[in-house]
């Protein structure tokens, strides 16, 4: 039902109370606030240009490194790419929050980049770095 929740406007009080009933007391707007903090991919651009490395890095100028940030809290909706294990981890965490941690927000899909640069001898190296760029994040 998460897609339906997102479409609702915050001022629609009537609808809100209906949803509260529908969700058995669960407040979907609290969930919407939570979703802003939920596990998601964030962008972090590593700029070789800003580092002043243009004298030895030929290409690229930089790369979108990205990282994963946010919480993996109950309920784990589909947008979090939660693994089955993450759901179990969440349930056990809820039962014993001080001993068992929440699932971890981490990359689930990574891709490579290629960097072209000069070495000390002015030879040129094209090196493929696997798993350097986060394509998507999820709860593990």
């Amino acid at each position, binding site marked *: 039902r998460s897609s339906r929740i997102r479409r609702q406007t915050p001022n629609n009080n009537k609808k809100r109370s209906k949803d509260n009933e529908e969700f058995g007391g669960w407040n979907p707007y609290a969930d919407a606030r939570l979703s802003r903090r939920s596990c998601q991919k964030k962008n972090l651009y590593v700029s070789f240009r800003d580092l002043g490395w*243009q004298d030895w890095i030929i290409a690229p100028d930089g790369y979108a490194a990205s990282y994963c940030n946010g919480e993996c809290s109950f309920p784990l909706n589909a947008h979090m790419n939660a693994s089955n294990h993450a759901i179990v981890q969440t349930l056990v965490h809820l039962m014993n929050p001080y001993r068992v941690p929440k699932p971890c927000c981490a990359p689930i899909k990574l891709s490579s980049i290629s960097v072209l640069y000069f070495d*000390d*001898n002015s*030879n040129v*190296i*094209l090196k*493929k770095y*696997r798993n350097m760029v986060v394509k998507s994040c999820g709860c593990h």
Partner: protein
Amino acid sequence: FYYDNGVDQTVVHKHLNKREKKEMQSEILHLLGLEHRPRPVLMLPSKKKLEVDDGLSSAPRFLIDVYQSLTEEDSGELKLTPDLIEREFNVSDSDVHSMDEADIIMSFVNRGQHLHGIRHHHSFGRFWFDLSEVPAQTTVISAELRLYINLTMVQENMNTTEKADEEETEGKSQNFSITVYEIGLEDSLIYIDSMEIDSHQEGWVAVNVSVPLQKWLVNPEENFGLQLVCRLSTSGKQISAREVGLVGSHGNDKLQPFMVAFFRSSMPSTQKQLGQQLPVPPKELIDDEDFENDEVPK
């Protein structure tokens, strides 16, 4: 240091001080598997580095073309679309295969003309490549010496006697052979490879030099370079590389000989990711069957 404000904009989060900047640079260099920031003698043009008329020599240009031919597939993997390099550098199918297989491709600038104390005075046909920066823990997939044959140069360098000979042969093409030798101890020559060149052939040719490269990486002290010998196919008479039309170190920068090598990283996958040695936990702490094959756990 920037962060994403959630609406597709980056915002300055914190200005790093000098020490923090240095640490950050060091971390990124480490991530790239480098111990220090390279200081190449050759300086790059500051703007529009990847444009065609950039004044760069053939060795960097070859890899720039390879880089520009890389496209990201749906899977997020970088794949080669070989049209560009095929057009300019006459790249074969096996080269494209090597490029796809390789984790590292290096193009080496010829330093043969700068060597001192070497008896092979035909510096034109003499090649030497500095391999000191080849990353450790790599396996050679293949390597080739790439040479450019310029037909205009052949016509200019052909002396009158040869022209007369050519006229006598009446249309018989004057083919050449080029042979590459590895230079051994006391200037001994060890045969590596040879190829026949048609008199009308123009463009890049590649000679397989995988064997000497593998040897030099294991024994760097045996790297005395390569020697090129050109002969007329009909008579076997030795001729200069210039007469064949091979572009040497004094020729056009974009057509100078260079060596390209394709390497596969032989580091375990986890180390490959980080570009560094990961600590291995004590065996008594590992009780998972998955870790029994001596792989470093993630």
